[in-house]
């Protein structure tokens, strides 16, 4: 029964956060100096013209009216029209970009989690062996490399010098013009996403491995493991059926948070590889003061992070009963 109360409490929490963030999402873009028309500077652009465009953008209405419209529209799923790509509806932009980012960062997160968990487990089991030392060294190296720099180096090495991989985008433009079959398309997409994927995964694997290793090490010290060994259980069985589950707990929190940041997490990588995803969209929208796009993107962002936090908290509650009280 205490658990049910705990879940209810977490959901309430989620709701309060969400409401406050809804307000912040509206205000934060508007706190930035300048307005969306600032970037259209041109000798032909008179102040009257600037005002006219602001009118088209709906920014000449009083701010409380803008807010009311914003909230009303959120509930109908209408995020407005982008100022950066006028008059494309924001929902279309998000619909176009979001799957690609999810694909990139989602795959990176999951693969890195799996690799990190398995390797971290092995490293901890064989603590202080050559393998362990090598894995730790490599992980630390990977975690120290600045992501964007790694991306740049890979880009030049493999994209320009060796010409093995394409240097931008998520698939070749020729697919728009000349339809082709599915297999070729998927192959093309994989070629385009390979380098960004590797770049993202490097940092994540390093971190996951180290955390998993640390938590496995402390799990291994627990009494019940010694007991299992004393009972003569097979090492591998101990490792995978018992230790894995318990050592994964801190990893869970980590992965949960990573999932939450899936959408925005790849700004640097997207910028370096010109990979048109949500991260790049947000970055450009910030620079261009594209309020509707920012509102829409932040909405999805905050929603996903909050959901991830909610799930992580609930999981924590399941796994550590002491928290629930």
């Amino acid at each position, binding site marked *: 029964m205490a658990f049910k109360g705990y879940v209810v409490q977490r959901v309430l929490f989620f709701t309060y956060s969400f409401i406050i963030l809804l307000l912040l999402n509206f205000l934060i873009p508007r706190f930035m100096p*300048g307005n969306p028309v*600032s970037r259209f500077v041109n*000798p032909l652009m008179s102040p009257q013209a600037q005002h006219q465009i602001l009118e088209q953008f709906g920014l000449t209405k009083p701010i409380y009216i803008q807010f009311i419209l914003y909230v009303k529209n959120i509930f109908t799923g209408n995020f407005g029209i982008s100022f950066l*790509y006028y008059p494309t509806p924001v929902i279309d932009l998000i619909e176009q970009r979001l799957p690609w980012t999810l694909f990139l960062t989602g795959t990176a997160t999951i693969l890195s989690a799996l690799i990190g968990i398995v390797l971290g487990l092995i490293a901890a089991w064989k603590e202080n062996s050559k393998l362990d030392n090598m894995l730790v060294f490599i992980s630390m190296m990977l975690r120290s490399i600045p992501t964007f720099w790694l991306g740049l180096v890979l880009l030049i090495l493999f994209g*320009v010098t060796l010409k093995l991989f*394409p240097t931008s985008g998520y698939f070749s433009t020729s697919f728009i*013009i000349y339809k082709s079959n599915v297999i070729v398309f998927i192959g093309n997409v994989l070629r385009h996403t390979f380098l960004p994927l590797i770049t993202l995964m490097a940092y994540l694997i390093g971190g996951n491995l180290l955390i998993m290793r640390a938590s496995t090490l402390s799990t291994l010290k627990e009494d019940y493991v010694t007991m299992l060994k004393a009972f003569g259980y097979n090492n591998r069985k101990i490792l995978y059926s018992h230790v894995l589950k318990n050592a994964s707990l801190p990893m869970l929190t980590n992965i949960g948070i990573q999932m939450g940041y899936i959408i925005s997490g790849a700004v640097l990588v997207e910028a370096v590889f010109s990979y*048109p995803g949500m991260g790049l969209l947000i970055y*450009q929208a910030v*620079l261009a003061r594209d309020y509707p796009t920012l509102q829409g993107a932040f909405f999805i962002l905050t929603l996903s992070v909050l959901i991830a936090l909610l799930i992580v908290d609930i999981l924590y509650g399941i796994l550590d009963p002491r928290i629930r009280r």
Partner: protein
Amino acid sequence: MRKNRLGLSNIAKSLIVIIIIIIAIIGGYIFIKNQNHTSPSSSTTSLFSTSNTTYSVSSISSNITLTAGFFEDVTSLNPVNWFTISDLDVLQLIYNTLVEVNSTGLPAPGLAQRWTISDNGSIYTFYLVHNATWQDGYPVTAQDVAFTFEYWKKYHFPYYAALAALIKNVTVINNYTVEVQLTHPYAGFLLELADIGMIIPKHIWQNVTNPYNYTNLIGDGPFEFVSRTPGVDIVLKANPNYFGGKPHFEYLVIKIFNSVDSALAALQSGTLNLIELPEGTNLQPLLSNPSIHIVTTPSTMIYYISMNTQTFPFNNTLIRQAIAYAINKTQILQLAFLDQGSVANSVISPSLQYWYNPDVMNYSYNTSEAIKLLEEAGFHLEKGVWVNSQGQQLSFTLLIPNEAPWIEIATIIKQQLSQIGIIVNIQSVDPTTWESIVIGTHNYQMTLGAWRLYFDPMLFLEPSFDSNESGPNGLDFSMFNNATVNLLIQKALQSSSLSIERYYVYQIQYVVSQQVPWIMLVYGQDIWAVQGFTNWQPVPRYGLWYYTTFINLIPSKG
């Protein structure tokens, strides 16, 4: 003992699995959705009129694509409600104007094969070509021209206020002849039309309720619109029935690049055919690549320092002139521009040969002259720093947007001025913030700027130096207020012939150089990288991005 815990761990594990499945579903969704998408763009209409089937396409080399590059994406692809220069660059390939420019920057036939101007300079009669057609088959007629001009007057499109105010009324004489009466004579009218006066089809736009959001892009130009993916690319297709000649390739793909680096990488890897590179790009590696050609075309880019003439220390002309002498423009040209350009003197670029006045005041690098002027302005050196009688120090903030080449130029300026004891603080902000300060509130002391000039110099001179434009959001951001210049500008705007306009433009250039609200630094170069195509023909200001180039480009063999 721990069974309970192990059991619950299963729940945790299954929750993870559920999350993984959700991601996998989303991944599958993407694949399926994008397989069915031919043009993954949003509400912009993709047009493929069925009526084109009657025309033959055999003269176009099919399957040849020219990939061009932009550094700024398009914002609003609407022939009347466009917002940025990138928009205009794309729209001009889809729509024609009545008048074009020739290689010297003077009016040349476009949709109008010839025209006459009345003696008092207020009435223009245009005689249209007879074989121009819209991409859905309808002919281009005088009714379209009249409709367009009236449309500009009917709505408040951001860039057409000046033209709308200039045009008094339009009369259709016959299907191919149209007469326009201006509110007052203005010799620059034709050049303005050449710059932005795109004609739109009456039969499509006459029933439109909201022209600001209308996204139909059926035009009469050498290219047809295919699709647009925001932030990624714009795809155009050659118009086989273009009255000015057919392009020798089928598709024009414009890719958006986020950095010079990625563009250079694309050039090196052979996936980019045509792009304009900013000055200061290191061209050495490109020059050593045999398949890449670097073409320099006459540019109307001007780079300058702007000082706020109403704020200390620049409210004193002597100080401004002193700084002008203290800047070593040659060094800036060498280091920040890699010698890709020339040292500037007048505000008008020499590429506008007709308008450029070479006899303006020249501020060649001369530190002793600078020091002399500073002392004349009442400053003296105290422990290596300039101070005046009221104890004010000669130091100021140089506000710049955080992009190349401004940071490089600012760094050089700071070091040059510190050599004679002037302290410069560099403040760097993002471009939008910069614009909101410099253009919006004019709350700065010194900044850097650049313009790409239009063919009609008044389009630039008036907003920049007429004191009526010095209020908030006005383009006279140096807050220049000079009665002589104000008068000269008014006279120029009322001139009934180009030569009269030129007389005044020459004088404006001279007075501005004397008063030096701007220190002119460099005239830029337009640098184009071309690969895989030959037979380009450059035009001033537009360089290789002009419809004539695209019609003449031929894919190179091998």
